[in-house]
């Protein structure tokens, strides 16, 4: 039995229908416990103050924003190469979630920037490249919305996401070249000597896991909706043929 079997919409509906309640439950548990831990049981940091708590939303959201585009890239490739409908629909379903994650990262960042940097917005390369990522999401979503025929739309958006990924990465590099910026470095990377203290670290990990599970649950729900819409369309078409 190969993994590709789940690319059949009917099979996918069955399996995902079975999985969905579990994923939702797990996501709720991790997310809630992570956030509660982070917000109520973590001491205020000396150099960040109480506002450090934003990190439990900000960082997971920022991480998801990037990774969701990666996921869309992979599913788009699968659609282009193997023409599995579920794959294309999953990419379509993921895009608005990614856009919202980007927006959350931007807004929490802005809210955080106010106490930290004394300004709501700064043209820091990291922030700016997130803004650009948001624009790529918007373009991708708008293209899905604009094209009538679903297969045409899937093809076009797949091409867009491929080329877009390259240019998003390029923009990130260009933005770095353009301005040195204020933003925090990547303290998460393991080879860095300086870790943030474990007290902040564990609830953060939990939150990140919660965000991932939350995303999986949402994508499942949205993909199922897309599949149902297509099924409705197919039924109507068959009726017309008769």
């Amino acid at each position, binding site marked *: 039995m190969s993994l590709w079997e789940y690319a059949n919409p009917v099979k996918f509906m069955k399996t995902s229908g079975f999985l969905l309640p579990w994923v939702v439950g797990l996501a709720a548990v991790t997310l809630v416990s992570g956030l509660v831990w982070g917000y109520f049981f973590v001491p205020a940091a000396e150099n960040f103050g109480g506002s450090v708590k934003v990190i439990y939303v900000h960082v997971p959201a920022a991480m998801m924003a990037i990774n969701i585009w990666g996921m869309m890239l992979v599913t788009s490739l699968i659609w282009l190469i193997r023409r599995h409908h579920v794959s294309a629909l999953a990419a379509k379903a993921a895009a608005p979630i990614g856009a919202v994650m980007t927006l959350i990262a931007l807004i929490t960042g802005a809210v955080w920037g106010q106490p930290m940097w004394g*300004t*709501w*917005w*700064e*043209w*820091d390369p990291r922030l*700016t490249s997130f*803004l*650009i990522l948001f*624009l790529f999401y*918007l*373009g991708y979503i*708008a*293209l899905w*919305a*604009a*094209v009538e025929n679903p297969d045409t739309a899937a093809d076009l958006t797949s091409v867009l996401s491929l080329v877009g990924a390259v240019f998003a990465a390029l923009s990130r590099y260009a933005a770095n070249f*353009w*301005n040195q910026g204020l933003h925090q470095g990547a303290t998460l990377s393991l080879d860095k000597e300086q870790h943030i203290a474990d007290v902040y670290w564990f609830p953060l990990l939990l939150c990140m896991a919660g965000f991932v599970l939350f995303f999986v649950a949402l994508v499942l729900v949205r993909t199922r909706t897309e599949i149902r819409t297509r099924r409705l369309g197919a039924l109507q078409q068959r009726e017309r043929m008769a």
Partner: protein
Amino acid sequence: MIALLIRDLRLAVRAGGGFGLGLAFFLIVVTLVPFGVGPQGDILARIAPGILWLGALLACLLSLDRIFALDFEDGSLDLLATAPMPLEGVVAMKAFAHWLTTGLPLVIAAPVFGILLHLPAAAQSWLVISLLLGTPALSVLGTFGAALTVGLKRGGLLLSLLVLPFYVPTLIFGAELIRRGAQGMATEVALLMLAGITAATVALIPFASAAAIRVNLR
């Protein structure tokens, strides 16, 4: 008449565009400016009123060129011209639909863009007021340009060339209004001029546009 408005709005939404698109475009312009100009907050703040107004102009321009061109190409314009409805009304409705899909969303979202460009808080309300007063003139003048170029293929650039000079007074008073408002200077003149220009264009330009369309259909 209302039917025309509804149709135009529906078409704008169907084309995957409508309200959001104008905003997204605006956001892009605001994002691109610092790339060109540099990220220094003080410079950005000084040029912000101008950039925001230029962005409004451009969002307008980009959505203009097809305002009549599509109707011309598929023959609707001929049919509308023979319909029991004054062509002036058609033009005015189209300008209104255009404003609803590009001007209005911009007015509403302007403060966010103001923040991005470090516009001082005092200027925010003036930004909204100046856009609210000025953007209708942009749409109406835009339809005039579109009416002049309706029969031409590749009208895009030509249209901008015709229309942009007409936008100058609105642009000047609009940006000036924000600048003065931000600095606490007297705003009455700029305010009155802006409102006056808009009122006059909205009242008179549709007649010129309708005349231009009649000539182009002939």
